[in-house]
């Protein structure tokens, strides 16, 4: 595993850039555990200070250091986003592959559920769930709700890939060789599905961050907890863009973009590494 990582780092420029970006931002986010002040405290610093040697990314109109706010915000937002992505990927992969491989009644049953979920409008449902849960709506619950809404389209995609693999030669071989269904799915088919998972994961992560920001901007989130959406919410409350406090919004957005690019580069390079087709084409025949 370490060797693979080293090889990827040394020999794949995209991976190296992606890795540096992602790890860099991860470390930056991790740093919030050592922040010199609690991330919910306000007016401990002079407000509205532009970026300077003392406050690298400036301070907010609430007297907070943008640097440390961002650190916490990225951590919390990524935690949310990745939770959504991981849960929804698991659901999509399981439903998609089982549905595609088993077919028949299972397929019909699962795809009916799937199609029902596809037809549900995300934002209204999330808002409604927030209203119902209100105080007990912690971020993990929100993440779970978002995950439940965010897997269905990709499950269809994965199903179609699995469907095409079902009739391939190697699947028949595996069946004759006495492999069980989970074994076939995991060992034989998963590598083909992996690229789909990576790419849908990227879109899903962006979608999840978008959900977080949307709910925050509309004021439906826990504003005590610094997140990217929470920072935008507060900046908005203080009319930061109009008042010229651009650093309050610009730096978090830049961080999100960099993180996204990092993850994207990681996804395409890792994808290339494990994609059976591109591996075959590399080997020659």
């Amino acid at each position: 595993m370490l060797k693979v990582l080293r090889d990827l780092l040394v020999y794949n420029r995209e991976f190296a850039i992606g890795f540096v970006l992602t790890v860099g931002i991860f470390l930056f986010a991790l740093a919030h555990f050592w922040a010199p002040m609690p991330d919910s405290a306000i007016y401990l610093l002079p407000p509205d200070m532009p970026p300077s040697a003392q406050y690298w990314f400036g301070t907010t109109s609430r007297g907070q250091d943008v640097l440390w706010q961002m650190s916490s915000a990225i951590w919390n937002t990524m935690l949310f986003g990745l939770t959504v992505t991981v849960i929804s990927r698991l659901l999509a992969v399981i439903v998609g592959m089982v549905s595609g491989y088993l077919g028949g009644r299972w397929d019909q049953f699962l795809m009916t559920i799937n199609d029902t979920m596809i037809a549900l409008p995300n934002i209204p449902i999330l808002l409604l769930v927030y209203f119902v849960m209100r105080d007990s709506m912690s971020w993990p619950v929100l993440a779970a709700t978002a995950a439940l809404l965010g897997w269905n389209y990709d499950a269809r995609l994965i199903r179609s890939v699995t469907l095409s693999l079902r009739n391939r030669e190697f699947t028949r071989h595996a069946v004759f060789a006495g492999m069980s269904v989970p074994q076939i799915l995991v060992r034989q088919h998963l590598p083909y599905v992996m690229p789909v998972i990576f790419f849908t994961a990227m879109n899903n992560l962006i979608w999840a961050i978008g959900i977080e920001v949307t709910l925050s901007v509309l004021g439906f989130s826990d504003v005590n907890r610094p997140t990217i959406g929470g920072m935008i919410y507060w900046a908005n409350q203080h009319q930061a863009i109009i008042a010229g406090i651009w650093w309050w919004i610009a730096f978090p957005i830049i961080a999100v973009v960099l993180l996204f690019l990092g993850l994207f580069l990681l996804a395409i390079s890792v994808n290339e590494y494990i994609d059976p087709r591109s591996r075959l084409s590399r080997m020659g025949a």
Partner: protein
Amino acid sequence: MLIKRLAAAALAIAAMAVPAVAQDFIAGIPRNEALIIQGPAAQNAEWFNLWAPGGGSTTNGNQQLSADTLWWINPEGTGDAAWTNALAADKPQYNDDFTQMTVKLKEGIFWSDGVEFTADDVKYTVDTQIAHPGMGWSAPFTVNVESVEVPDRNTVVFNLKEPNSRFHTLFTVRWNAAWIMPKHVFEKVEDPLAYSANPPVSLSAYVLHSYDKAGNWAIWKLRDDWQRTSIGMGLTEAPEVKYVVYRNAGNPDARVIEQMNHNLDVINDIAPEGMFTIARDAADTTAYWFDGFPFAHPDPTLPSVLFNHQVAPFENKDVRWALALMIDIRAVAMGSYRGAANLAALSTPPTGTSITDYYEPMQDWLTSFTLDTGTRQITPYDPTVAEQVAALVRPQWGDQIPSDPEQLKRMFGFGWWKQDLQAATELLQKAGFTKNGNQWMKPDGTPFTIKLMVEGDNIPTLARAGTIIAQQWSMEGIQTTIDVAGPTWGQRLGPGDFQVAIGWTVETWGGHPDLSFFLESYHSDFIKPLGEIQPPRNLQRWTDERLDALIEANRKVSFDSPEVVQLGMDYLKLAVEEMPFIPLMAYNKFAPFDTTYWTGYPSAANPYAASGPFWSNLRYMIVALEANPSAPAAQ
């Protein structure tokens, strides 16, 4: 090559998309004849029935410009000047035991369709609403009115079910009131609740010109016969504003931009930072309530820290006082309004007439007020808070901040409670609390934590105030978390689904010292058990025998009696002693005016009308505005 061709095509499309000429801002209406006011996003744009549920508080100009009723109070005014007889020719006349009210109406007032306004319209308004329980003022009429008589076409006599010296307030506009219905229109309608009243018949100087079906704007036009209205009769010259445009100008950022682009003359409210931006970038073309910092217009409402008296330990006065003394009000003023707050120690907003009636006379009492902390007596009042806040904002605003303490008191408030952590500790100990490390423990040994509910988005300055107070309490050992309730805020206050909240349960006439506006509902008769909905406005569910006695006494004195002020002071002293909620400040609204096209807006120096565009009083501002002679020529 393919790519190059595509890029060229994209550029060509983009070039075509760039608008050749920008359009006029309003089609067909000269900009210099129109006053543009921030309006709501009306969902029910084609509905102009003011008497259906919710209809009376629409803010698209309908009630502000076309409705009228018997009397008006200018919330910014003082003394007799604050009172206006509108449709009524005189003040209300009660009989001795306040069971009958007689009103004389003005003559020569006409509806915009040419039908004359008479006493029959007033009677019809009351009778129809009693007959239709869903209508807006049906409930108060049903409770109060036995019958309405019309002895002649200009006289109305209300026979009341029981004595009520404040019955006339139903017809007295501060924000709004029971509007008079056009009898000749509604009597042809089968169901007055289902009637859209589109187009509305106007009883005031302006009439509907056109409106957006999508609810983004409504345009009102000066009536040709504007003189045949209660407001027009009082004018010597025709109003210069020919059109009033209520437009939904979008989010706060868009509002600021629109005003700086001269597309929005009157803003209802924006964040302090937006206000400061306008003051910085567009000072030459903008007017404010105060001619400089703090700019804001104080509404006669009193944002406070509300305690739920039915939730332990907030029934304990010592706990409430301890929490009050933990607050550093300077930080709250800076944190909520960036210093631009009008602080209030008394339970009435420091605006309008209450300054001369209550705040100034009671300063000595406040300064000498002593509080028993259990171990000693303290005098917690600090009359120098205004100067302290001024010192904090002077680095940013410099010369705009005067040094005269009297002026500062008008800007920043008369005084507040000094932060006194030692006294707070003593009070909590007196209440049986103990301190474990930096954590206060309740008498039962569990940690004392607080959930502080704020609204959030729509009232951002108060959410900020709540946040800073929560932080101060937390630092002193009472873990306090902010609970942003959003649109459920109002609904959670009702059934008492909160511990502590930022909200307001005190609103006053502003232009009249009578406190019955809110005080009537504070009577213990109306207290509900937790979970049941408490009628507005005693949302803190405060009960006190002394309070009941005050309210009962107030019911028996006439609206204009000097006793009203005396009872008001008694109430205010009681509220200081008991600290049922912690008054913070007036609800300051940042409502800048664009002076490019219009001048003569009301201000602290000339408070002839309310400035909030959602207040019906605004009509008195509109007819008083003067066209700016140096406005850009008509397009």
